[in-house]
């Protein structure tokens, strides 16, 4: 089998380190993704997104002048964004909890800590394909649903329309 399912997929890698870009490209190629474009920072990536359709984005977090967080926010929220729903995997060595939360709040779909392995990268892609996330739009956020699991005894505020459809008001 030669990755026929990914044959028509277009991916974009946003990473300031050329070696890591090359490695990610090779890993995507080995999974069957042949059409891969590259950018060294968020500004260049936004240009590419405007020029061509992309189905998947892999982005680093720390880049200059535009980092991966701002890039993600632009993709999700800018009126000029060609595809606010595009899956974004953030791949970074900045794995402290508050940075992971910042990535989540910017609207990334999946988070992958460096050092990367092929298995870990493929597992994130598999999540996007097999378990696509719902998107949430509210005053302060647009992006993939940040609730990963349902908490049985959740005591916080219920704000979503379906919360009211699915349960009686507490």
């Amino acid at each position, binding site marked *: 089998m030669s990755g026929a399912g990914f044959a028509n997929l277009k991916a974009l890698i946003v990473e300031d380190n050329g070696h890591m870009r090359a490695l990610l490209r090779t890993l995507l190629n*080995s999974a069957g993704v042949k059409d891969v474009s590259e950018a060294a920072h968020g500004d260049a990536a936004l240009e590419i997104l405007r020029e061509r359709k992309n189905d998947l984005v892999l982005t680093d977090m720390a880049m200059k002048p535009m980092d991966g967080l701002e890039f993600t926010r632009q993709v999700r929220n800018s009126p000029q964004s060609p595809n606010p729903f595009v899956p974004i995997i953030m791949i970074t060595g900045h794995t402290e909890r508050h940075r992971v939360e910042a990535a989540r709040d910017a609207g990334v779909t999946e988070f992958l800590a460096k*050092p990367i392995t092929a298995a870990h990268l493929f597992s994130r892609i598999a999540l996007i394909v097999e378990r696509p996330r719902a998107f949430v739009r509210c005053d302060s956020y647009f992006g993939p649903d940040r609730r990963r699991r349902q908490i049985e005894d959740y005591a916080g505020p219920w704000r979503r329309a379906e919360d009211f459809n699915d349960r009686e008001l507490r």
Partner: protein
Amino acid sequence: MSNPAQKQAQMITPDAYPQMMSRQDGMRAMLSMRSAQTMDKAQAAMDAAVPAMKNAILQYVGELEQAGGDMRKIFETVHEIRGFAATAGLVTTGRIAEILCRYMDDMERLGKAADGQLVALHVSAIARAARAEDDDVRLGEEVAAELAALVARKLLTAR
């Protein structure tokens, strides 16, 4: 209970927005991606990247040593090293970089300056580990454990 005046969030289910690929293509792609052939190819790509990654690490180490007291530069560079080292097969280098990353991040969050001597000690250990011909994991773990203990004491004092 929610505040009735609060605007409700809108949920957009996956079938209501364009997906990365069709369900059928997705199933085919997953079969292919999980095949032994694909994993072998991917592993070969990882292995082939090791020499270039090692060179990149050595370049970062040089930048780290040149950074002097520029803590922002050290912070950024050591995060790069943490991200690359294991891919380059430099486990010890990555482990020590990880300790320094955590320390500098914690100090930043505490609003305090990192201890220059402690940072220099880590930089020196990272450089030695990266330039060692063999990645001596056992010895490296001992060094890393010592540094981690030192960092824990420093953080306790800082808090």
